[in-house]
């Protein structure tokens, strides 16, 4: 793909996304008489075009390849993540409401082979949302994570089992 056609592709994708967003959020598509609401839809067209021209390089960076298969795997990963979030909440609730509060906080560090921005953000947010761990620091150059864990068991899940790292790595195809 040449540079110019890539730019046009970015503008078209951004325009479509922005216009869809406009239609969904405004809801004024058809007037009560059943005609097309020209004023509101037209304003949406103009605004999305301006936004697409100015900021197309933010949404479509051109760095990520194989977007479709990645989004598909990411979608599957989301369901696992959702289940982990529910587990995390029961875990925190148990620790908080238990009369003796079974907590033993510690800070751990580990390195991952992940490098791309999106993979690092996904892993960092997943760590924060899953049982007993919160990301403190991420070093994108080395893929190094600093994590605060509320007890020994959730820390081991990250440093010993590494279930989450391998799942995220699989989604973004960055194994090893």
């Amino acid at each position, binding site marked *: 793909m040449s540079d110019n056609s890539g730019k046009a592709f970015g503008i078209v994708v951004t325009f479509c996304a922005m216009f869809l967003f406009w239609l969904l959020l405004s809801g004024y598509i058809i007037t009560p008489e059943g005609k097309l609401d020209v004023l509101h839809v037209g304003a949406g067209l103009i605004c999305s075009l301006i936004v697409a021209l100015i900021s197309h390089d933010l949404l479509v960076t051109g760095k990520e390849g194989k977007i479709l298969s990645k989004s598909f795997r990411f979608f599957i990963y989301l369901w696992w993540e959702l289940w982990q979030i529910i587990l995390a909440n029961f875990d925190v609730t148990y620790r908080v409401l238990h009369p003796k*509060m079974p*907590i033993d906080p510690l800070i751990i560090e580990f390195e991952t082979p992940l490098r791309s921005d999106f993979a690092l953000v996904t892993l960092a947010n997943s760590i924060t949302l899953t049982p007993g761990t919160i990301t403190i620091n991420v070093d994108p150059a080395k893929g190094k994570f600093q994590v605060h864990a509320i007890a020994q068991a959730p820390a081991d899940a990250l440093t010993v089992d590494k279930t989450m790292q391998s799942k995220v790595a699989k989604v973004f195809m960055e194994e090893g």
Partner: protein
Amino acid sequence: MVELIVVIVTILLAAGVFFMLSGAIGLLRLPDFYTRLHATGKCDTLGEVLIIFGLLLYHIFVYSPGAELSVQLVPVKLLFLICFIFLANPTATHAIMKAAYNTGVKPWKKGDPRM
């Protein structure tokens, strides 16, 4: 049908309130800054999402049938809200955590007095 939806919505709202409440209790009971963030960061996310999801179901099945299009599109906005909460909440928790760590807030160890 509507009664069943109302029961499900009530359960969702109650669960959301329960998690928000345990987050608040955690904020009061846990010993230091970092562990308090564990309680608020996780419980608030799921609590808010459960409440919004309950409102979404109520809007689709009980409130909006027969209404005009702009009213029927409200669940879409709520869905966007859920996505943004899932993105923004852990990011904000991480940002607060990082700021505290970089300015040298000491983490609590087992056996220390409460801070």
